[in-house]
């Protein structure tokens, strides 16, 4: 019923992937069930371990903000991003300018 998609070069069978995920999920749940249940709630046994430091009350203090995510990638690609973000001025005349230039270039190349 789920069917196989033939691409002309290979195929995609969704049912085998669903079977794989079902087995993987069952395995994960089994592993989770092996955990100890005899810990004492409300003691240090169920506290978050945060490299031995005291866990701050406010969640925002222990999270990496989105603007810091992939910092290394952005640092390495800084010259590329300088050009790319520089293109996105948000100025109306620039937006129309890009349109005019692209249409003009297409017109020139199609007539060549």
């Amino acid at each position, binding site marked *: 019923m789920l069917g196989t998609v033939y*691409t002309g070069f290979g195929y995609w069978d969704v049912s085998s992937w669903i079977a794989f995920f079902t087995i993987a999920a069952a395995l994960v749940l089994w592993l989770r069930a092996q955990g100890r249940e005899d810990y004492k709630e409300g003691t240090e046994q169920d506290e978050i371990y945060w490299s031995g430091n005291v866990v701050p009350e406010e969640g925002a203090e222990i999270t990496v903000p*989105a603007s810091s995510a992939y910092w290394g990638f952005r640092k390495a690609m800084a010259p590329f991003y300088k050009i790319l973000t520089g293109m996105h001025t948000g100025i109306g005349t620039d*937006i*129309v300018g890009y*349109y005019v230039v692209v249409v003009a270039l297409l*017109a020139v*190349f*199609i007539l060549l």
Partner: protein
Amino acid sequence: MNWNDHLPALLLAIPLFGAFVAPVASPFGRTTRNALLASFSFLTLLVSLFLLRHTLTNGIAVYVMGGESFDLTLPLGMKLPVRIIMEVDAFSAFMAVCGSIASFAGALFSMNYMEKFTGLGRFVSLYFLLTVGMLGMMITGDMFNFFVFLEISSIASIGLIAFWRDRPEAVEASIKYMLISQVSSMVFLIAAGALYGKYNVLNMAAMGALIKPGTLEKLALVFLVGTLAMKCGAFPLHMWLPDAYAEAPSGVSCLLVAVSQASLYGLMRVCFSLYGVNLGGAFIPWAMIVMGLSSMFFGVAMAVVQHDIKRLIGYHSVSQVGYMLLGLGVGMLVLTDARGMAEYGFTAIKGGIFHIFNYTMYKALLFLAAGAVYYTTGKRDLNELGGLARRMPFTTGMFVIAAAAISGLPPFNGFVSKLLIYESAFAVHPALTVVALVTSVLTLASFVKVFQTAFLGPERSAFATVREVPTAMLFGMGVLTLAVLVATLFPSWTLSYLVEPAARALVDQAGYVGAVMGGGL
């Protein structure tokens, strides 16, 4: 009277009627207004589904507006059609279904989401006008009529993007969209006028039968391609898009996704049905492929560094449009080469069309999920969000499904359409597939960032009172989640009954022309 014959007219009449009734019904209160929004959107969806079934069973449906008979395209003594003719083949009907699902989901979501706004009668009116414009573009067979629907959708979009008129950013985004939209619409009109001046017809099928490659035709083609590529958000014509999608209310962003696909539909209709074998070489197909690759890569590159959730999703729209341009561009490249079309061209077109469906569903869902986050927290900046998964489990679940689908993770539907595009693009040149694969990796990276920063992590004290969004909003997201899951679990059914007939209709220029012209000319 057989209602099935009048489905093309009904598809436009229902939302148009809704647009005019809305200001009258709105003073009767919130319940009446919401009932109108939901019921008319649902009726439109039903009609689009019936229309799809009708076209799959009976072939192309033509509907003559204002003629002596609805199916008489060429009255006695006429060599060319002069009336406005709606021409609905499997591709048009497929697009109408995609658009109607997004419209219905956006309508359900907007019922609660828009509560804080005033002037909601006008909102409902503009929302239905945008739906009419979108559906009209998808089913019209007339060049000037396409322009009219393009304008209707543009004007409604301008009003809806700026609907939160207290925010200067929303007004600014709307003005930018208005500027580029009007300039490009004039260029479209010049192209349509030039073709009309030369061939004396505005009907696309008749024009498709007459058109010959020449200087004027090539310039008109470039004008049409440039305008429609801008409207669907191809790089570097996309600059208006992130602002507009981010500032529009989320239910509207959801519908704008489908509206951009109406422009992509127009682009494909012009290239495949209007010009078809008269495209005049490989330049336009390669232009599509290059625009597709650059949209994919630069769109996702910009998305990775965003931290406003809606702008980030907006940049992903640019990136996803690239996949469709790549797939359809590869198909266009071998339009006159039967062997190439059989080996990989048709697969590419199927991949592109399947991606249209997938993209409309998961991207609309992502915008609604982002809207749900904003509705409950009042924030769009990812730096200020976190730990929402515990508070909003249903929204989180649906966001994860949409994020996995857009990233092309198996077994989700996005993977299937991308697989078809990867493999067929590889047959043209492996570099095309490499760019597409890198884009997919960056897409995943980007959505991992959103999921981790907005939904995971410790709870924040500012969100201690946050609760799951109201039921109607969940239903709106649920409709799209269901569509994503159906395409995920039944990919061969979706391809056989929805995508393949649409792809066959798109490449069948003779069939499109013949439905209006018969054996004429």
